[in-house]
């Protein structure tokens, strides 16, 4: 109160500094603005059901964006998460027809672990660029899935009840998916800020040479990271099939690039060393609300995509201007 009297700082600068210290605030404000616009365009659309629906669709995106956040912190990226999620979903849906659900689950998670391991070894040991490495494993995974599809074409597919309950169910109006997401998100946030592994992710992305001189073994960190990323993607696939309920060979692919966008909008730098998961979660919510907004505008699909791209670019640029000083 009195500080303003002693040191008259222009209001604009004060706001800017406030925002720079708390980068989440402008994101939350943006989210609220989008919701308000939606409410103005379609009065009454924002109700309990709409909120529950938005959250349901934002959660798979948010988990995949968590994979991107963690890999981007090290200066990497994981483009194989779409394929991994699709594979685990497809294998789960087809195996559960003849197998015990627990066995089906293990079978579904196997390719996730394998692809993560290959990604990690490729990036961490052989120093392949993450973009190329994960793109490569993603294509290989898609190919394998097509081969696999022929072998199960006769048996058909079924969505396990539990996954449908988790993906679409509500308990007292609250989406059941939160039961999975809240602990998972808490775990990611905790890992990034309060564990040695999280520290190393930031440090490796910031200055790999320095971490080496401090005794960090790069390949260990990177291998663990890509395995974790893949496992998270696998779990997302299971959740997503419960939500979409229609197994296909490109189930989660459309989520890959939005997951990168969500992490970037949330303030994670693609050059590594900067960012966090809470921003990413809000970034995923913003993208989901934006999609709804553009859907109700009843524009042709092309115009909608153009607008979507423009808004993502604009928001990211504006956000960086607000948060970064200098």
């Amino acid at each position: 109160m009195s500080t303003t009297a002693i040191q008259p700082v222009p209001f604009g600068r004060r706001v800017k500094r406030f925002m720079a210290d708390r980068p989440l605030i402008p994101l939350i404000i943006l989210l609220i603005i989008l919701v308000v616009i939606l409410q103005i365009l379609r009065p009454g659309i924002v109700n309990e059901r709409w909120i529950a629906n938005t959250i349901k669709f934002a959660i798979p995106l948010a988990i995949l964006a968590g994979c991107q956040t963690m890999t981007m912190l090290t200066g990497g990226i994981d483009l194989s998460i779409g394929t991994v999620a699709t594979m685990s979903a497809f294998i789960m849906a087809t195996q559960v027809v003849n197998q015990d659900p627990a066995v089906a689950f293990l079978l579904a998670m196997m390719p996730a672990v394998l692809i993560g391991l290959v990604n990690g070894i490729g990036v961490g040991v052989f120093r392949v660029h993450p973009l190329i490495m994960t793109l490569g494993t993603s294509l290989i995974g898609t190919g394998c899935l097509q081969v696999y599809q022929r072998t199960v074409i006769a048996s058909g597919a079924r969505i396990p009840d539990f996954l449908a309950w988790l993906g679409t169910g509500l308990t007292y109006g609250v989406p059941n998916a939160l039961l999975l997401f809240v602990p998972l998100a808490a775990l990611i946030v905790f890992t990034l800020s309060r564990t040695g592994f999280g520290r190393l992710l930031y440090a490796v992305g910031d200055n790999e040479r320095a971490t080496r001189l401090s005794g960090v073994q790069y390949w260990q960190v990177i291998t663990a990271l890509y395995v974790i990323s893949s496992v998270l993607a696998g779990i997302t696939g299971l959740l997503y099939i419960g939500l979409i309920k229609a197994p296909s060979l490109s189930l989660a692919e459309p989520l890959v690039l939005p997951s990168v966008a969500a992490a970037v909008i949330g303030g994670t730098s693609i050059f590594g060393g900067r960012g966090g998961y809470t921003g990413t979660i809000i970034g995923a919510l913003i993208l989901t609300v934006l999609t709804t907004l553009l859907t109700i505008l009843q524009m042709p699909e092309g115009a909608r995509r153009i607008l979507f791209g423009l808004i993502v670019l604009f928001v990211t640029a504006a956000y960086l201007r607000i948060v970064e000083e200098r």
Partner: protein
Amino acid sequence: MTSNPLLDATGVAKNYGAVAALRNASLSVLPGEVHALMGANGAGKSTLVKILTGAIPANAGRILIRGEARDIRSPAAARRAGLLPVYQEPSLIPDLDVLSNLRLTSTPVEPFRAWVRELGIPDLDIRDTARDIPLAVLRVLDLARALAVEPDVLLLDEMTAALPANLAEKVLEVVRRQGDSGRAVIFISHRFVEISALCDRATVLRDGETVGVVDIVPGVEEKIVELMLGTRIVKTHVAARSAAQKAVPAPARPRLSVHNLRVGTKLNDVSFDLADGEVAGVVALEGQGQDELFAALAGSIRPSGGTIEVDGQPAKFSHPIDAIRAGLAYVPGDRAEALAMQRSVRENIALPFSAALRNWGPIAMRQERAKVVSAIERLQIDTRAQGEVQRLSGGNQQKVTIARWVAADTRTLLCFDPTRGIDVGTKQEIYKLLREVAGHGKSVLFYTSELEEVQRVCDRVIVIFGGRVVDIFPVEEADEPALMRAAYGLPRGAKADIGILADPHCSSPESASSSASTSPGATP
């Protein structure tokens, strides 16, 4: 001198968030003078230089060039106005050859070549890729590139830091002649020898303000130090160490023992011991194999021959983690090599704690905080801007690199020129710290490019020349002329005049280079 100033900056201020890097700095440079810009670390020298050369915008202030107000918004604008900087870090693009680098800045090639020869590098191939050129030569090339476009005001930031004596001498000579030809040079340096030999006047900064402009006359050093340090620090000469502070007399088994170590073509045959409680200095001219020696001891590169023994046990390091497990920690001279610049002071200091796989779990925050805080206190790190290490001053960054290993309680520190380009006060603190570390029974291997540091810090000096140990001095005999001779590969006791440090008024680079080339150890 009644002429109008070439460059006149007044009331320059710059804030980084809540931290004021410059409050009220002014600098006025007359035609034909070499003007020193001085100040302790964090006084704002670098910030002022960056503003003058258009690298960053000022928040306030007025800059006149030849009496005209100029708004320098970019490095290109500064260039057009006749202001050209040579920064501390080499600025050639590593993947291009020298010629392409010159074309990038449209620097005329012939004058550049002439300057390069003038600066003491007769055999430069301008088709060489910048990456393959040694650091010292790169810095000289930067200078030649700036000189080639004949700037009115040349800004040299720590130009002679990390230059071997023979090159440094040439550089100083050329800078002096710039002043004679009516142009001006702004010269930033921590070395009084150079400043007194070279400069006409000095502007002194403290805490972002210009606190004085003095003429360089004999005996002005005391006044400058006083201005730089204000009332905070008393005189900073270290008294000779008392016998009690000296190393414990030769214990039965050395802490570290190196036998016939060879690395590639640079390091040919190095053997020495390092005892607990000892600070051993390493002195060498640029590129005599000291980089390889430290890298091998730190586990960064594998030696091609010889043995390293730690506590009597033979050790093979294939990754820095192996060296760290054996209690050997490497502190590089280049801070950018050791720090995660966007992370906090705390995370940087605590980095080694999380390195091993078994420490990847939850961090005991309170315990870590206690260790970090105690290390910060021991090194007196200024933590006002601790959120991001990149906002600290160079000296404070350097302290963080050392604090990391103090917090980890490492038994042996390998410090590679830890005082490069930092101010007098911080240097003193680092000397004190290294002595203290040794006093606790730990050991330090300390390479320095500033010979005067040897007597302040070391118990023993290992001199390396051409990849071999040429001499090991007890500290009592290691005065600067003696070390200089040894560093040039001359046998102890020979009396040849070499270089500026032996006699600042007699420049004799010819004798220096010839004595180097005729000395027995000169063949690689």
